[in-house]
């Protein structure tokens, strides 16, 4: 009886955030182009040797997702802070976890859309061919992104309200993402035919476990960071 309304609130908030993103379309495009630029920079930095690049591709892809994606999280709170909307938002009835869930959902959609453009781009630039591993790569992307977005949305709730937010968010966020990054890179590489004998199953379980654990943990902790 109390769940239903909060579920609707989650959807309302996610819808609102996405609507705003659609309006300020510039932002999505900017992030996509930035990601593309980063892919290029990686290419230039890791030298022209095609073999080396292909070997590094999975890692590069995920680093690009992390570095460009983490720029989007602060923004989802900036819109709240601009005209004091956050205070109003916090005073609505119902659980505040629905705010977290809503923003998480919106960011998830946002990042997944970025990836939908980023992955083919990386495939082209780094001469990758997924073949029948495509499904696996997709699964890895989804699992990895869930964990990434969960942590990003959570830490941005704090960082976005501080002066040094640009530096602080990645500083808090990245160390937490290490297990996810390792797993994601391994799985992606495996499905792209690099290390065929890698225990992808175990990695995927790790990622799923990470997602569940930290989703619950951040949900539980959110009231402490958002309430003022």
């Amino acid at each position, binding site marked *: 009886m109390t769940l*239903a*309304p*909060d579920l*609707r*609130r989650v959807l*309302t*908030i996610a819808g*609102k955030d996405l*609507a*705003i993103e659609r*309006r*300020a379309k510039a932002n999505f495009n900017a992030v996509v182009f930035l990601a593309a630029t980063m892919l290029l920079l990686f290419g230039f930095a890791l030298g022209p040797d095609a073999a080396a690049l292909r070997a590094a591709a999975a890692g590069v892809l995920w680093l690009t997702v992390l570095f460009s994606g983490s720029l989007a999280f602060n923004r989802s709170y900036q*819109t709240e802070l*601009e*005209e*004091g*909307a956050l*205070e*109003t*938002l*916090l*005073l*609505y*009835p*119902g*659980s505040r976890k629905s705010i977290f869930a809503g923003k998480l959902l919106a960011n998830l959609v946002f990042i997944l859309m970025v990836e939908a453009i980023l992955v083919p781009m990386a495939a082209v630039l780094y001469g990758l061919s997924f073949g029948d591993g495509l499904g696996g790569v997709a699964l890895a992307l989804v699992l990895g992104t869930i964990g990434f977005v969960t942590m990003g949305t959570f830490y941005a709730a704090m960082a976005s309200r501080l002066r040094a937010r640009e530096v602080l968010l990645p500083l808090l966020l990245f160390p937490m993402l290490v297990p996810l990054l390792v797993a994601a890179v391994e799985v992606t590489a495996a499905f792209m035919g690099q290390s065929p004998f890698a225990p992808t199953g175990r990695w995927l379980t790790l990622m799923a476990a990470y997602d569940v654990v930290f989703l619950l943990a951040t949900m539980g902790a959110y009231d402490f960071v958002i309430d*003022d």
Partner: protein
Amino acid sequence: MDTADAINLTGVARRFGRRWALRGITMRASAGESLMLLGRNGSGKTTLLRVLSTSLAPTRGAGTVLGHALGRSADRIRPLVAWLGHDPGLYGDLTGVENLRFSERMRRPIDGSATRDGRIAGALERVDLAAAGDERTRGYSAGMKRRLALARVLLAEPRLLLLDEPYASFDESGIQLVNEVVRAMREAGGCVVVATHDRERSAEVATRALRLEDGLLYDDELGAVSSRSAVPGVYA
């Protein structure tokens, strides 16, 4: 629920970092009242309103709003209170209607969208923004933004209404609108607290005047010119 006081604070104090914004507020207000809250800059008006709205927890002291304890059962209070602050609290990239729809969806998640849109149209009519309802609020003037925020408050139909300097950046008609809203709330049996620097305007609708001087509450006369000699007001 029982006919408890709308507001009942005892010794509520609030600190920001090292400085005390409220030093111990003891007050009581009942349904149907509308309080005028005076006091110069930095005296603590906004802080007091934010404590009443549950967006700030008291550092010391205790109190109830509409019968529910501040802090402990804040989520019982939130559905019953509406707050209009310095900032309109809008999303500049959404239209006026979309802003109101969002707020309504958050307050009444299970309403049908038909009834909802009906109520929204009515509210826009009332703050006469019907014309601008489909423009993004980023283009609104300060006055229009506050009108829209007022419409949001109207739709909320709260039992305790908290207005922080509602007359600011309003022209004559806007000021009248604010006062109509206050009257309507009172007649609906709600309680209203208006923090303002504009004694004359709010005197038209207030039933009682209070004054904050750095963090302490004194009572004040409605019409009078702010009297410097006053005693701590305790309403038991």
